[in-house]
């Protein structure tokens, strides 16, 4: 049992570090003196930087070489991420595309799609967004209502709404899960599409959250035309294709959780700055309990990596780490606000921002309740909840829910 690099991993780390040493000066400055402020300039600069990272082999580490990747494993991906963090430069802009959507296209796309989309995605020339969640389909993702209708000429017409879409405001393409057949049970009538975000009928609106900032979007589709080549993974196979994306999402969240900044050192530093708080037994006990759990998540991540290294795929128990992180950060934010007082809630306070962000994060990537169901059933083997939607055509389900015919 050890946490050290193997000789091969150490060599890879040295190679990444050396590239960063040479090129860190070209990275956009996002914090501190000289930082870019204009949102559009930031995005433009980060796209260029992603291109350089891709040239240097620091983007798409796990992608196959034939698509411009390095053909390496998750450990190398983590090492690369650690070195980028250490160099204090931004990572890739399109983590959702490169981490989740690209691998889905690699797994399910046809040759033409791979040739057309993967290169520009990897280099940041075309940013992607994930068009899965809807106002009435989140944890129960297979309940999506966005409808794609086949036309006589083989093309499609798309109508509906997506929500919680990161990066949609500057994305070139989206990977979209739509219903193509409402007369079969809900998991069966779904199809995955590639949607150009500049197509007529696509409208993107910022979605403001508790903090007042808009970090996500809602996206509306009003009779958007898609050609036959937009289908990924075959008509009616959308659910299987989506599961691939969700598996990569779990890996991304599981390995990248520390990147959210919800870590024990940061929270301890916030309390340590208060001379009374740091000596108060109740504060110390609460802080110790919360930070112990967050420390555990770091080592759970190492355990996940060890499993990946042995060729095992991380299971739904990675969801438990997400619950620990979110609830731990919520408790820590509460404790910090107790210790620091109303100033912790000032407009420009990092803690006010975190406190505002977390209630929504609790439901991101599946609500805590649905994660606990999944873990209880798949890991502990407990019997599932009785379901009322099995084997019932989607249109009938909707009718039972009282939807207008």
């Amino acid at each position, binding site marked *: 049992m050890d946490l050290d690099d193997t000789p091969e991993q150490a060599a890879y780390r040295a190679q990444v570090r050396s590239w960063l040493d040479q090129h860190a000066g070209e990275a956009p400055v996002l914090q501190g003196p000289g930082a870019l402020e204009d949102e559009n300039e930031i995005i433009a600069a980060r796209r260029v930087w992603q291109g350089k990272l891709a040239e240097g082999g620091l983007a798409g580490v796990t992608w196959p070489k034939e698509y411009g990747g390095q053909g390496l494993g998750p450990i190398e991906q983590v090492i690369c991420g650690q070195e980028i963090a250490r160099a204090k430069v931004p990572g890739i802009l399109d983590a959702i595309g490169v981490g989740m959507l690209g691998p889905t296209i690699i797994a399910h796309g046809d040759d033409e799609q791979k040739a057309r989309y993967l290169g520009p995605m990897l280099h940041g020339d075309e940013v992607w967004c994930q068009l899965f969640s809807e106002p009435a389909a989140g944890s129960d993702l297979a309940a999506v209502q966005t409808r794609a209708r086949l036309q006589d000429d083989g093309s499609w017409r798309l109508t509906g709404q997506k929500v919680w879409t990161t990066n949609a405001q500057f994305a070139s393409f989206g990977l979209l899960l739509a219903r193509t057949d409402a007369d079969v049970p809900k998991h069966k009538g779904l199809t995955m599409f590639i949607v150009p975000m500049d197509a007529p009928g696509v409208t993107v609106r910022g979605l403001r959250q508790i903090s007042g900032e808009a970090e996500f979007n809602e996206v509306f589709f009003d009779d958007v035309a898609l050609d036959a080549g937009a289908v990924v993974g075959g008509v009616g196979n959308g659910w299987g294709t989506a599961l691939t994306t969700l598996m990569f999402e779990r890996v991304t969240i599981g390995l990248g959780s520390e990147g959210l900044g919800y870590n024990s050192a940061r929270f*301890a530093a916030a309390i*340590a700055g208060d001379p009374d708080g740091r000596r108060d037994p109740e504060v110390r006990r609460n802080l110790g309990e919360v*930070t112990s759990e967050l420390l*555990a998540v770091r080592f759970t991540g190492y355990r996940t*990596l060890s499993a990946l290294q042995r060729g095992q795929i991380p299971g739904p128990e990675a969801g438990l780490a997400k619950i620990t992180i979110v609830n731990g950060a919520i408790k820590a934010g509460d404790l910090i606000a107790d210790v620091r007082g109303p100033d912790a809630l000032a407009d420009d306070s990092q803690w006010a921002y975190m406190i505002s962000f977390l209630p929504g994060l609790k439901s991101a990537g599946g609500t805590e309740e649905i994660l606990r169901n999944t873990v209880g059933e798949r890991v*502990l083997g*407990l019997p599932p909840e009785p379901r009322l939607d099995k084997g019932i055509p989607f249109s009938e389900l909707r009718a039972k829910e009282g939807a207008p015919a």
Partner: protein
Amino acid sequence: MNLALSDEQVFLREAARGTLSRFQTLEAARDALDGDENALPDMWPAAREAGWPGLLIDEAHGGAGLDAFDAMLVMGECGRVLAAIPLLGHLPATAILSDSPNAAEFLADLASGERRAAYLPSCPPDDVHERWSGDPEDGMRRAELPSAVPGDEAGRVRLNGKFAFVPDAPGADALVGVALLEGRPVGVAVLGDASGVEVEPVRRYDATRSLGHVSLNDAPGVLLDAPEESLAAAWHLAQALIAADSLGSVETALEMSVAYAKERHTFGRAIGSYQAVKHSLTEVLRQLENGRSLLYYAGWARRGAPAEFPLAASAARSVAGRALDYGARTMISVHGGIGATWEHDAPLYFRRSELSRRLLGGTALASDRVAGELMAQATAA
């Protein structure tokens, strides 16, 4: 990076499970609570056969030369079945003696289990508390450690003071801990049967834990030359070991609860299909997995990053203690009324939980140290 168990570690764990399965530990625990003084089997011979007394003693001195994580694997198996084996006291004591060149001659007998040692809980200072302390006999105020004065010969001391709730002290051949010599912490060892040593057996709530109050009245002791870091590390090792023991109990609590939740039906379906039950059980799993991850941290840190060992071991104890509380209570509630009856095994785990969480400084003190270590790091950075 490799946090997987080695083949040897898997074998050690499986062998431990096999050894312990020869005993009816749960029945014994219940009978002992009922007042049968001979109910608890003497498991020390089996522990000796398995080589556990020498787990942390190097091979040159007759031990197995293994590390803390291996010891934690064995402790976890003991916790699974509530085994009454005096390793919690013995192992940290052997860690101090292994780091004391002048105690080398005692190691072979301790490694073979011919003689048994018990660790006198001695808590090192932290960022707020500047003094070493002992566990109090009652209340919250930390106890003074016993004092040592130079004895008649070089390397000998006379000891005065008390250690309360010492795990596995009754019947121990040697008692090993920390005393204050002119205010300075020093490692000391005394023989259990020396003059001026009185071990009062105490039982509190859980019959599977042997405890004793140790009084030292001008007791003759050996001054150990272990460095102060080793004396502190023994406390943290004890935290990691009781954490592992606790998580072993949580494993059983979860397994039994899950099995029952699959089999017991109400309102026409298995109770495990209800979210309220399912979510409680996944919460036990969440806390258990967090605890396991921290055992890896502690197991690695003791040799791999000694400066982080206090943090790692304390964090493991903090999470494991709370996991045991939650796991034992969930086991009772999932079983419904029967889970709260004398005949059921759940109360035995509950009793182990209630007492374990108050020993060796208690779970709360471990949480406090996690906060202290992290804030000290933050201030230094």
